[in-house]
């Protein structure tokens, strides 16, 4: 491996993953009250371990190496401060789980994730906690991912950790099996949120934070592999993640610009991943309760199967958006529903939907809303309105790539300046 950027990526991802693993393992041993210590120890150990790589090169199996060396360094560090922290000095990092009365899922990361999904915490605080501990992102990375000031992030993180410390009941000691079932919807939502943040960044140069998308898939897979039982909703969510990720390779142009679904070269889609998505969707169908993930995965599945944008089953997509909107109504869903109606040629119904949304203040800064109005005006052949709506889309806060795309559209409708 000689490409500098690839090495940086490999290091970033390996370090992040192992930091998450170390923190989770330490918390499972030390208890949720020691999340701070676990984070410090994990970071120290990784920095120390990494300092030798410049003289040796990257080990053949960097993950195993870091896990061993940083794990040992972490044991030393905790042993040294065991007395002052009032911890059991016979504390052993590598002792196997033996407690048969409260069978652990044997997965510290999953345990910690269950702890992070505390219903008392706001969803965004749960997400911050999960990214910072289970996934091993640094404070700087987490604040950049969520567009938060680092000060704000550390305040919210402190609040979340205080909450963990205050937990004294059964959950704090045995956070796994019985809590998992109860908290599964929250866990799924965290994974969904993590993926959505990665897939649709609203600012900055990166079109997609692939690492965040991959992390969401990893956590979903881990949860599926180790949870006592999987639910149809989880299979549906996993199908959704796979369908969306399968399209990622076609979503960038060579210069990093956004390529819309309409313009994507579908031969770049990952067929194997789409197949896996359909398998998950099959497993999801065996359910009396439909979750929002069912509808979203259904929509993604129709796109995945369509030979082209125009030859897409827009009638089914419009129907699914209608059901999704009934299930969990939101302006963004209505906007997408309207787009599918435009594609179907039902312009009047699309207009009714969009007009009803017009007074919503939050939508004025939502690019998708203005782009949908643009599409409608364009379909009606109203060039003046098409241009005006595009200008409004452009004025919204966008990630650089989305803005580039709108600029490109803009040029079709006349000069921007």
């Amino acid at each position, binding site marked *: 491996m000689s490409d500098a950027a690839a090495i940086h990526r490999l290091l970033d991802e390996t370090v992040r993953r192992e930091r998450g693993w170390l923190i989770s393992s330490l918390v499972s041993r030390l208890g949720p009250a020691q999340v701070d210590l676990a984070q410090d120890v994990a970071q120290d150990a990784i920095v120390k371990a990494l300092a030798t790589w*410049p003289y040796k090169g990257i080990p053949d199996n960097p993950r195993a190496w870091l896990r061993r060396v940083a794990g040992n360094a972490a044991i030393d560090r905790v042993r040294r401060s065991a007395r002052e922290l009032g911890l059991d000095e016979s504390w052993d990092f590598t002792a196997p789980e033996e407690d048969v009365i409260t069978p652990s899922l044997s997965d510290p990361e999953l345990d910690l994730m269950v702890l992070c999904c505390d219903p008392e915490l706001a969803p965004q605080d749960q997400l911050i906690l999960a990214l910072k501990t289970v996934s091993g992102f640094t404070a700087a990375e987490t604040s950049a991912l969520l567009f938060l000031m680092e000060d704000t992030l550390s305040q919210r993180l402190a609040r979340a950790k205080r909450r963990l410390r205050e937990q004294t009941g059964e959950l704090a000691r045995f956070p796994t099996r019985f809590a998992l079932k109860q908290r599964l919807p929250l866990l799924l939502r965290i994974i969904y949120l993590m993926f959505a943040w990665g897939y649709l960044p609203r600012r900055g140069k990166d079109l997609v934070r692939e690492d965040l998308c991959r992390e969401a898939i990893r956590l979903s897979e881990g949860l599926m592999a180790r949870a006592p039982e999987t639910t149809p909703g989880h299979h549906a969510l996993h199908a959704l993640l796979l369908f969306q990720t399968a399209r990622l390779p076609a979503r960038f142009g060579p210069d990093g610009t956004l390529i819309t679904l309409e313009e994507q070269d579908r031969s770049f889609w990952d067929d194997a991943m789409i197949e896996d998505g359909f398998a998950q969707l099959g497993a999801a169908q065996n359910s009396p309760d439909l979750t929002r993930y069912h509808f979203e995965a259904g929509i993604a599945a129709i796109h995945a199967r369509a030979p082209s944008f125009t030859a897409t089953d827009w009638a089914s997509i419009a129907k699914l958006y209608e059901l999704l909107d009934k299930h969990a109504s939101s302006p963004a869903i209505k906007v997408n529903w309207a787009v599918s109606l435009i594609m179907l040629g039902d312009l009047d119904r699309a207009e009714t939907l969009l007009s009803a949304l017009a007074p919503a203040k939050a939508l004025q800064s939502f690019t998708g809303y203005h782009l949908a109005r643009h599409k409608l005006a364009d379909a009606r052949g109203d060039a003046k309105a098409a241009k005006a709506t595009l200008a409004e889309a452009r004025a919204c806060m966008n990630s650089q790539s989305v803005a580039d795309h709108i600029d490109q559209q803009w040029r079709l409708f006349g000069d921007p300046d």
Partner: protein
Amino acid sequence: MPKFVLMLPHAPDRYTKLGEAEFMDLMKDYIGWVEEMSAKGKFEGGEKLLDEGGKVVTNKSGAIEVHDGPFTEVAEILGGYMVINADDYDEAVEIARSHPHMKHNETIIIRQTDASADD
């Protein structure tokens, strides 16, 4: 091919005052360079030296004296060394020029190993 030792000294407080993120970025530069040189067959190996302590053993007119480090009066301490393959000093200097140590520190000392006794 002749081997050259690159000695990499740094100021005693060079790394202690860095934030973790900065330190990691620095490490990535070094690791990337080592990987690149390894791919080209130029990198032979190296050792990082521990920053703390060190000892000096001296013969004072027959009496052996041992002194502990750190040696606070020194301007630079040796952080480690690397061994590279190069045709001659010219190439070794070229390789050293591209070394991230020249970006993040000030000095690299190059010495050729004496291979005359090797088979």
